[in-house]
């Protein structure tokens, strides 16, 4: 990105002054090097979001921002319904509530070694992953609606996981005001075989070790020590969320003119929050969030079954579960006044700071865990929300590394078999049904996650707590 387009307001804060139809400024949080590598499309998309009705404060981009659809991936924007604010299906995206959850195991790397190969095989065979895979949980019409209304709370009620898990999931595992009736039969049909599946692409299940602890105050509260074994799960709302996104994108694109919304890009498809389309979307999107929460809960249950067979001494307690692609109603202070806003995070993580009432009481003294997924060959991070972040970007931070190379470039550069072999020599076991998929997801095809996380830390969006490195990865 051309630095001349931006005004630097701090080491990691870059502003775009309002011009044309922009209603608020744009703000990008990133190091100079990350900004230079960012696509010009991020600039265009940040400014486009700033033109939407009812946007408040600024259109934000996180340090991992890259070219998305309508919104940049890594985009954050909040809308005030009393100012004609909109909700945007493009601002949430197709994979509604895609997210990461991390589980402590109570084990160390030494405990893993005797059964490492067996564990990788068992996780690969028990947790459905990849194109064409089917889950083992099939829901009839009544149960589908109950799942869409209840989320992870529904799953726990059905025996998938523990009641105490719910405390450590955003929204306590159940997004309120979901309307299963606003979810089409097509979307429900698309989901009927997909509960408890990982999906494909950048989704994964990893067993990781804590290799470094940065924050001596937060780490013990999160229950993280160097050498600990962690399980991380990255997946979303599967076909149901994709179908909701597809259908409402069209409905909003077609209805925008009726609501006098001028879309600089049709992918920004939006409707007033206080409109029939807007309310229908919110009801369906919240059901999509519940689907993702239930899905990660069922996958967690399957992981616990595998560990119970091979490492029965494991405890597998939930550290936290974060969602990346959401629109949520939150209260934030605007010009000194607490205001109810609809906060869109597209490829961005909620990162509430210490003392926030939505952070679980046992973690509230330090803030919300922020789980940042890396690649199968590099690292993931646990961060913690900061007080400053609430004012910087509505309590938001980055969500991952972001690709630096297209899938085709990656295919030209690597062979899946070679990636698996090279990672095995480093002690990282890869299990995937598709070697082409492994090549496309090669670690070298991603940006340096450490640089992204350092930028989030320096910008005070979230503070580094621990670095996790993979020991095995199941890829779809």
């Amino acid at each position, binding site marked *: 990105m051309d630095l001349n387009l931006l005004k630097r307001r701090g080491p990691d804060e870059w502003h775009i002054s309002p011009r044309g139809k922009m209603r608020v400024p744009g703000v990008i949080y990133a190091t100079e090097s990350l900004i230079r590598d960012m696509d010009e499309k991020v600039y265009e998309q940040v400014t486009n979001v700033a033109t939407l009705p009812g946007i408040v404060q600024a259109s934000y981009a996180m340090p991992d921002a890259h070219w998305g659809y309508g919104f940049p991936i890594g985009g954050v924007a909040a809308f005030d319904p009393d100012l004609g604010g909109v909700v945007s299906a493009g601002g949430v*995206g197709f994979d509604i509530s895609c997210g990461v959850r991390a589980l402590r195991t109570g084990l160390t790397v030494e405990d893993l070694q005797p059964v490492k190969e067996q564990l990788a095989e068992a996780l690969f065979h028990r947790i459905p992953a990849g*194109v064409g895979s089917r889950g083992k949980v099939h829901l009839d019409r009544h149960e589908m609606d109950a799942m869409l209304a209840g989320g992870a709370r529904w799953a726990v009620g059905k025996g998938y996981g523990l009641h105490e898990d719910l405390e450590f999931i955003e929204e306590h595992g159940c997004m309120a005001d979901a309307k299963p009736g606003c979810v089409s039969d097509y979307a429900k049909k698309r989901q009927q075989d997909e509960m408890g599946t990982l999906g*494909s692409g950048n989704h994964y299940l990893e067993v990781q070790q804590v290799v470094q602890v940065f924050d001596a105050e937060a780490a013990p509260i999160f229950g993280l020590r160097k050498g600990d074994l962690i399980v991380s799960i990255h997946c979303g709302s599967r076909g149901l969320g*994709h179908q909701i996104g597809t259908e409402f994108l069209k409905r909003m694109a077609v209805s925008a003119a009726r609501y006098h919304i001028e879309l600089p*890009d*049709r992918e920004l498809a939006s409707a007033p929050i206080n409109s029939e389309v807007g309310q229908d979307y919110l009801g369906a999107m919240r059901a999509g969030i519940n689907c993702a929460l239930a899905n990660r809960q069922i996958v967690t249950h399957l992981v616990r079954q595998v560990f119970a067979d091979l490492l029965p001494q494991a405890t597998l307690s939930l550290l936290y579960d974060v969602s990346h692609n959401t629109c949520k109603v939150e209260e934030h202070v605007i010009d000194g006044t607490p205001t109810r806003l609809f906060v869109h995070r597209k490829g961005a993580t909620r990162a509430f700071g210490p003392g926030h009432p939505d952070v679980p009481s046992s973690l509230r003294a330090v803030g919300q865990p922020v789980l940042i997924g890396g690649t199968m060959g590099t690292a993931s991070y646990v961060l913690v929300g900061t007080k400053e972040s609430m004012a910087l970007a509505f309590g938001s931070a980055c969500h991952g590394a972001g690709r630096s190379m*297209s899938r085709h*470039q990656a295919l030209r550069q690597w062979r899946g078999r070679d990636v698996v072999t090279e990672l095995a020599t480093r002690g990282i076991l890869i299990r995937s049904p598709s070697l*082409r998929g492994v090549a496309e997801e090669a670690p070298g095809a991603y940006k340096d996650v450490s640089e992204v996380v350092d930028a989030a830390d320096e910008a005070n969006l979230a503070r580094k707590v621990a670095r996790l490195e993979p020991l095995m990865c199941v890829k*779809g």
Partner: protein
Amino acid sequence: MSYAGTNVESSMQPNWEHFPHEADMGVRGIGSTKEAAFEGAALALTAVITDPAEVMPTQPVTVACEAPDDELLLVDWLNALVYEMATRKMLFSRFAVRLNDHGLQGTAWGEPVDVARHQPAVEVKGATYTELSVKQDEQGRWIAQCVVDV
């Protein structure tokens, strides 16, 4: 562009290709008619997932779409195929499209996913409005394209 290919029924001119998107992939169909361009875009969609040459066009599936303009119709067509692939657990390698005043009627021929043979790299979540266009170029060829989310 990185990949391009030829439909089984067309001449030797490539009738589809991919174009780069930072996180995902662009699909582009090229043809002497709008219908052929839509068919090429569908083949490009399959090529995001697997090598179309590996997919046997044995089972037909029909779809119908309606939209207010050509661009939204292209997205609808690709999303209808995404839906059929997801719910039938199939992949498609041959397509026939008929356009009329109100929309599109299409047939896709394919087979059930065989993970070992197809090595499907990634599932497509949906076709997007990003880089979306349906138009004729200077040589009169129809181009139908958009980015798909994977």
